[in-house]
């Protein structure tokens, strides 16, 4: 398909994003490192991981975090799930004229707190202030470098028989931000899952689990991650729907707005593929952080490149890549 204008759907993390990124960016910038299309690029012969991310979330602060926390978590998590220790970050601000200094200070404070959790530092940055109306309050870009301490994690190494795990209940960030944007008054305790994943990933590695693939399920949710893996590895991922934990609040928002939790964004939730013999060990470690983590499925070869969702009454269906304009500006 030929794209005429960029639409919001091109930023959804699903099939339209893929079309834009692969059709234009990859085709022009093509090189061996980029084409691997991992969460972070491996450079210097696989010694370092390198990644970047921009943050435009609206509203700037939400239950469980703000744009500052998100900007550190987002980039550090992309490094962490590649088996890297986040070390050095750059930061760039695009600030709208008139933005409150106190609000900026509080965002910077969140960034500082989150950096400490990753034991990472900001080493360079840039500030731009633009006239009113040229950006919406505040956009942030962060870029990060991490040191690889566990190598070989890749979306294309999944094989038949392997187990798929999820680190906690899904969809909280997407649900919180969407509810806030829609002005839904929720009398719930629901908070974004926004969190730094490095400590949790480190404990899995230290626990001796063989990690085949690992990815934080941001835009496009776990549906996007699982489809990407099925596609990259040429296998089928079969998921037992009843094993996926979805909090009541998230499910409620999905029922109200007609979403599927599997397509909602997360900012501190990751999907993990391990050899089946390591699955219980990995689960035990994940459960130390979140009781809601679970083994949700396994790899086979019935429908190559597809994700199959099995219901508890014996039917099955495909879980497709999310399409359309789901949640603009959630991160």
């Amino acid at each position, binding site marked *: 398909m030929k794209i005429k204008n960029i639409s919001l759907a091109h930023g959804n993390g699903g099939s339209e994003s893929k079309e834009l990124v692969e059709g234009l960016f990859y085709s022009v910038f093509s090189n061996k490192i980029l084409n691997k299309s991992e969460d972070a690029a491996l450079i210097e012969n696989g010694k370092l991981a390198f990644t970047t991310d921009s943050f435009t979330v609206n509203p700037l602060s939400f239950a469980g975090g703000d744009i500052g926390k998100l900007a550190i978590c987002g980039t550090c998590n992309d490094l962490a799930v590649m088996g890297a220790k986040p070390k050095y970050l750059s930061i760039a601000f695009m600030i709208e004229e008139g933005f409150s200094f106190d609000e900026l200070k509080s965002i910077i404070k969140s960034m500082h707190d989150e950096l400490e959790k990753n034991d990472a530092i900001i080493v360079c940055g840039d500030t731009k202030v633009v006239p009113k109306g040229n950006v919406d309050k505040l956009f942030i870009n962060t870029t990060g470098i991490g040191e690889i301490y566990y190598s070989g994690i890749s979306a294309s190494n999944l094989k038949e028989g392997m187990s798929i795990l999820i680190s906690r209940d899904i969809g909280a960030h997407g649900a919180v931000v969407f509810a806030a944007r829609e002005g839904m008054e929720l009398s719930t305790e629901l908070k974004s899952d926004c969190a730094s994943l490095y400590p949790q990933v480190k404990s899995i590695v230290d626990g001796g689990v063989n990690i085949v693939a690992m990815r934080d399920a941001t835009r496009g949710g776990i549906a996007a991650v699982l489809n990407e893996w099925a596609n990259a590895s040429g296998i089928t991922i079969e998921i037992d729907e009843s094993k996926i934990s979805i909090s009541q609040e998230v499910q409620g928002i999905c029922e109200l707005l007609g979403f599927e939790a599997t397509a909602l964004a997360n900012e501190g939730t990751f999907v993990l593929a391990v050899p089946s013999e390591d699955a219980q060990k990995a689960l035990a470690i994940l459960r130390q952080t979140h009781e809601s983590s679970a083994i949700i499925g396994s790899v086979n070869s019935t429908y190559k490149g597809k994700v199959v969702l099995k219901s508890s009454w*014996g*039917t099955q269906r495909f879980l497709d890549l999310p399409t359309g*304009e789901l949640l603009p500006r959630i991160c």
Partner: protein
Amino acid sequence: MSIELKNLYDDFRDAKTIKAYAKQIAIDAKKLGRPIGIMEVCGGHTHTIMKYGLPQLMPANVHFIHGPGCPVCIMPKERVDHAYTLAMQPDVILVTLGDMIRVPGSHGSLQDARAKGADVRFVYSPIDVLKIARENPDKKVIFFAIGFETTTPMTAALLESVIKNDIKNVLFYINHVTVPEVMTTLMIDGENRPVENKIDAFLGPSHVSVIAGSQIYEPFASVYKRPVVVSGFEPVDVMQSIHMILKQLIEGRSEVEVQYARAVEKGGNKKAQELTNKYFEKAPLFSWRGLGKVPKSSWQLKDEFSAYDAQKIYDSILSKEECQDHKLCRCGDILKGLATPPDCTIFGTLCKPSNPVGSCMVSSEGACSAYYKYGNIK
């Protein structure tokens, strides 16, 4: 004690209950012995049926026929073009519901119009239009109103608020349609001759019936001898309704029954009906995508509310030409229950959710979209 949200749906997705109904349906179907086609009129049911994989639970001689009850799917191209034209007017904000912004017209979709600079927004509730109008006093806010009996009273309520609060910058482009008239076209043609079809019974819409009442289906049972069971949207609802339909067929009955009794009454919601009748009257004709012109199957604003009617105000710039659908697209046959999505040669190839050719691929309630998304795994 408070009711937890999950109490509202958990029982209706219970694996044991679904399996038990599947067993009973297999017994019923064996008794009948012949092929049975059940049309789910409403797109919401199509979505439920595909999402929960219910065709996989049906015996070989019971199959679903997907009906015309998806408001986005049945919108003719010329009306999408009208919305596009309205959106491109200077100082206009066009507001609509959900999927409508993705339906391709002759010049593109409303999403394309927005990418070209038009101000197009979608809302979950029509009442949100008031907020947009208040925040943009120098703009004309046109509500592109779509939907069946369910959403019509919401549009009427919006108009009532607009009048009461003396808001000057809200206009309406009305595309509200009604279910019984279009169901009738599946039974008889314009000259009252029976139409060939494979529909043995109807699964009646949920939300439409909450508003209009189960009474609206009486002729289908009494005149056309098709059992009608008004069903809820959850998988247990649909399974129970199928069982009720098969029971009627076994016993040689054709009646209107309500499975969705927790929300539907025979007479429906009188207040909502009054609100609709206060502002709207039946339009002589509505051109349904794929189904053609159906008399008295839609609403228009009454003459006394012409000042709010964008169709009248912008009449001179709205094209009067009727548009043809893509010649390979079979949305029309699919909406009439004569074909299923895999029967269409462009399904999943030229026509995909990311680049829909036909409207049944656009809406999440459309049959093509449901087949594509959930896969028709047998």
